């Protein structure tokens, strides 16, 4: 019970001091809007292309939203030593890191709904399988957040976190089948696609929005969960190795 009081307050403090700040709210809204507009204009097609573009825009919004903020909430606090205060608290490290990421996961989910709401205004989303889409969005948010956490723990400075995040984020956008089918990628690049968590997240979204998944959805869900667990485990190992010297 006591540990959950700490969990709740760490989560709520982060929401108040980071996620509800006007710059982050505007980032959370503008970024998905910009991606949506960009892809819509670039495609040069009519409204019928929205369902094809939607999974990509949703995934990108989550990926960039969560990873960017983790660099601040974790790296910045570690740099300013306020993170030590959390490490000194009598709460399990696992719960502490979950508390630090819960806000980012919610932020990612909220980001995802910006393009979905826009799409709902412009086209008919009646064919969307919401029972797959919503868990898919949550899982992508968790995987992206844990990827951001893994990066944030691996570096010392905020700018390093942003740089290293881009090293993962941009290739992922092009390799995971969000905008270009993996089958169209050069043969030597394809194996790389299958070691990226977003590949399976994107497949879930394609399946949920327009029944265009290439793998069974159950397998996609399972693999994203495995990626989440692995990233979280590696992060904990890194925290123990690098921060508790």
């Amino acid at each position, binding site marked *: 019970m006591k540990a959950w*009081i700490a969990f*709740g307050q760490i989560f709520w*403090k982060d929401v108040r*001091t980071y996620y509800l700040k006007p710059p982050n709210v505007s980032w959370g809204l503008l970024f998905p809007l910009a991606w949506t507009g960009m892809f819509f204009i670039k495609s040069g097609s009519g409204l019928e292309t929205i369902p094809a573009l939607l999974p990509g825009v949703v995934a990108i919004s989550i990926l960039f939203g969560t990873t960017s903020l983790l660099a601040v909430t974790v790296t910045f606090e570690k740099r300013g*030593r*306020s993170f030590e205060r959390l*490490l*000194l*608290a009598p709460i399990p490290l696992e719960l502490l890191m979950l508390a630090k990421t819960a806000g980012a996961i919610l932020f990612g989910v909220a980001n995802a709904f910006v393009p979905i709401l826009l799409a709902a205004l412009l086209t008919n989303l009646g064919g969307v399988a919401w029972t797959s889409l919503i868990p898919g969005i949550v899982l992508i948010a968790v995987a992206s957040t844990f990827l951001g956490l893994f990066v944030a723990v691996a570096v010392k400075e905020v700018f390093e976190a942003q740089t290293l995040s881009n090293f993962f984020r941009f290739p992922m956008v092009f390799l995971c089948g969000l905008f270009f089918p993996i089958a169209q990628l050069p043969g030597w690049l394809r194996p790389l696609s299958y070691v990226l968590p977003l590949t399976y997240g994107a497949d879930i979204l394609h399946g949920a929005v327009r029944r265009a998944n290439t793998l069974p959805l159950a397998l996609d869900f399972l693999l994203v969960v495995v990626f989440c667990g692995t990233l979280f485990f590696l992060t904990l190992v890194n925290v123990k190795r690098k921060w508790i*010297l």
Partner: protein
Amino acid sequence: MRAGQQEAVTSLGDPPAIEVEGLAKRFGDVTAVDGISFAVRQGEIFGFLGPNGAGKTTTINMLTGLARPSGGTIRYFGRDHTSSVKSAQHLMGVVPDESNLYPELDGFENLCFCGALYGMPRPEREARARDLLETFGLAAVGSRRFGQYSKGMKRKLTIAAGIMHRPPVLFLDEPTTGIDVASARQIRQLLAGLNAAGTTIFLTTHYIEEAERLCDRIGFIVSGRIVALDTVDSLLQEVKGQHAVELLLSEERTAACAEISEAFPDLRCQATGSRLRLMSPKPVSLFPLLRFLDERDVRVFEARVVRQSLEEVFVRVTGIGVDEMRKEREKQGAAA
């Protein structure tokens, strides 16, 4: 033992609040802490003194769970917590050398947040935060953001945050470094009050006078090893009957010490830059000494009799000049 503290310190039969045996920390080839052993009795103020890089902060980090020991054992109130100091973290409050509260939260919110980290329910932590703001003279600025506090206010709030959950043991790393004299005095009074209420305090400081005034017992650590550990009174016995004089020369004269020791066999001389410290079991007669130096073209700018203090003990047992400590202290104060 300081007057008025007798009641607060529990009987010797109780297990020590902190007990450390052979505690060591190595970073690759560098040994930061070299198998130290000591016990901090319940209800005492234990001072841990040493120059920069001596191993003070590393020791605190191991005791609080921010660093893993390379060897040795850590016990709190008789229970072994070496393998998981986390299981003892509810027993301790930690005030680090740098104030590390959240600049974007106000004073009251910071205290409430710290209380929540230790599982305090909301009504309890809010009442406690109000009490502490009052006690530390910060009630008027409780709704001001921490980032806008002065250095002294920041230190006070950081100490208040350390005791939010009423820990039986409080670790304080350089609590008065870099703050003004009035705030430092107020903090010392607050610490004495906390201790009188039964809190065991583990204090590291560069300020030897502060340790002398506050602490029941003191351990001197140099290069990761404890070189002396005793009550303040017992440590002062080391220099009891000793007389010391300090001379400030116009320039550094490396040979001066050797020449003085040869001419005045009763005097023990120690040089730190252009400053000479002369110690003797008898009162030091200044006139022949100054004449001796004058004959050798050594100009003396200043001569002062040094009172018997813990500073003297520190110089004797560590071999480190008080000037070096002062410089470090100034450097740290400027950085803080």
